[in-house]
């Protein structure tokens, strides 16, 4: 039986992106996700963007269910199960590269790195199409040592793809680990660079999910299941599956190009 939680607040944090806060007594770590159920619409995986007593999800409207979630009002309910999956590893110097809603799972990790793990240095690269797509900038500035913003239209921060600016940062020696979450097209060059440079990397991947408990195979990448073995994959696994990145499974299980999926 799914648990049911009540919306405490719903804040629009960027264009078509809403953060929904709710009380939910479950231990969770940054990187983990939940299955959010809106009866009549569907059930979708969403990262926890807040992992304290008052949890949060931050959702971008891309279809019917995410739209319903984004429109939830205070006091309204939704079904939830989880948290599922694993989380990021902490190290002394962390480089974070986020694209769009990839920040949803990275923001609480950044917060925890500073507050709980008291790591030495966190630098964040955060890219999106445009200024209106960026969110949680205050939160990131508060916990990170440095924040580099890039937008494709140049409306905020540097102009260009975030990879243009972040990739050069990846060099053996300085960072103990690189965390990345975002579109696969963004993550592939980052992971490749890290593997090439011998820098520790963790990438959080998204795949079509049905069961979220590691049985149905819907989210399989190679021999790994994103819901169970991931969503955060480490250097070793990434080096094994790097050639499988960019391909996802449609709901039928057929492999299609990542870009094809919506």
């Amino acid at each position: 039986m799914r648990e049911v939680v009540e919306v405490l607040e719903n804040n629009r944090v960027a264009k078509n992106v809403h953060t929904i806060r709710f009380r939910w007594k479950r231990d969770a770590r940054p990187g983990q996700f939940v299955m959010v159920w809106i009866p009549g619409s569907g059930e979708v995986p969403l990262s926890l963007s807040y992992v304290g007593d008052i949890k949060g999800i931050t959702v971008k409207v891309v279809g019917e269910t995410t739209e319903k979630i984004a429109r939830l009002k205070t006091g309204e309910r939704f079904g939830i199960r989880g948290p599922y999956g694993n989380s990021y590893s902490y190290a002394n110097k962390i480089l974070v590269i986020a694209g769009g809603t990839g920040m949803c799972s990275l923001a609480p990790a950044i917060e925890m790195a500073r507050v709980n793990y008291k790591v030495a240095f966190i630098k964040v690269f955060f890219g999106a199409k445009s200024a209106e797509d960026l969110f949680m900038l205050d939160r990131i500035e508060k916990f990170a040592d440095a924040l580099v913003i890039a937008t494709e239209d140049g409306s905020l921060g540097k102009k260009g793809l975030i990879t243009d600016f972040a990739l050069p940062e990846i060099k053996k020696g300085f960072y103990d680990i690189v965390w990345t979450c975002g579109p696969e097209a963004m993550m592939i060059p980052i992971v490749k660079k890290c593997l090439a440079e011998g820098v520790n990397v963790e990438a959080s991947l998204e795949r079509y999910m049905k069961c979220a408990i590691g049985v149905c195979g819907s989210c399989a990448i190679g021999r790994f299941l994103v819901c169970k073995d991931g969503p955060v994959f480490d250097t070793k696994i990434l080096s094994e599956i790097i050639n499988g990145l960019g391909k996802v499974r449609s709901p039928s299980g057929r492999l299609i190009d990542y870009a094809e999926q919506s």
Partner: protein
Amino acid sequence: MADIGVEVCGIRLKHPVMLASGILGISAETMKRAEEGGASAVITKSFSIEERAGHENPTIALFKHGILNSMGLPNPGARAMAKEIEKAKKMCRVPIIASVFGKDADEFVKACEIARDSGADAVEINLSCPHVPGTGMELGVDPNAVKEIVTEVKSCIDLPVFVKLTPNTHALQKIALMAVEGGADAIVAINTVRGMLINPMMKKPELSTIFGGYSGPGILPIGIYCVYTIYSAVGQSVPVIGVGGICRGMDAIQYFMAGASAVQVGSAVYYRGYSAFSEIANEIETFLENEGVNSIRDIIGIAVR
């Protein structure tokens, strides 16, 4: 050392614990993963000639005693699955058994032919999925349809044919007998039990399809009963493969003692992780050793003879 090797329809297995259909068996790599977890054979996800997206989420509901699912037989279609089977045959050392379904004998035959051509070691005819209209148990509760489908399949392919049956019927013995008459080489039981859960706070069914199939520990006695009743009907004419609720070696032992020659394990992957297969196989072996039983064959049906 107790001998836990078994032979089912001429297929030798190093132990009797196979992967059940619909769990993991979506790609060559995940089948390999099941092999690494110790499965002695792998049944693929059930597939049809054409691709199917399956039902809308939510397709899973968890509760204290098991899992409800209404996946809806999603699969990328027989041709895509055939490629996975070909690849799996290269990657894995364990037998790969193709689970197929269709809406009539013709579709079953076509899917089986594709499976055969892909190198599958056997086919499993899914006549038991409880939540997809027009196939699965809708066909599988009609003894004549079962016989016809099995007969057709047997006349077209020369692989061993497993027939997987539903517990959701009062005619199980008859259905099993008709499957055997049709030429089934083994009977597999059970597929999931029809079940439904409602979320009181949301006032809605927990599955998008309202009801689904119940698997996991809570169905154990139902599966054992079905295996017993099939075993009583078909006697030693064909092996019965037990599936449903097996999480521990002792659960599997009950199936053997009820007449099963081998077992399949699905939901235990959720309860115990991917090494469920080898763990259960080890527990079976330990039990046999402690009991001074030489071979698993010595306990098949022992409780019901």
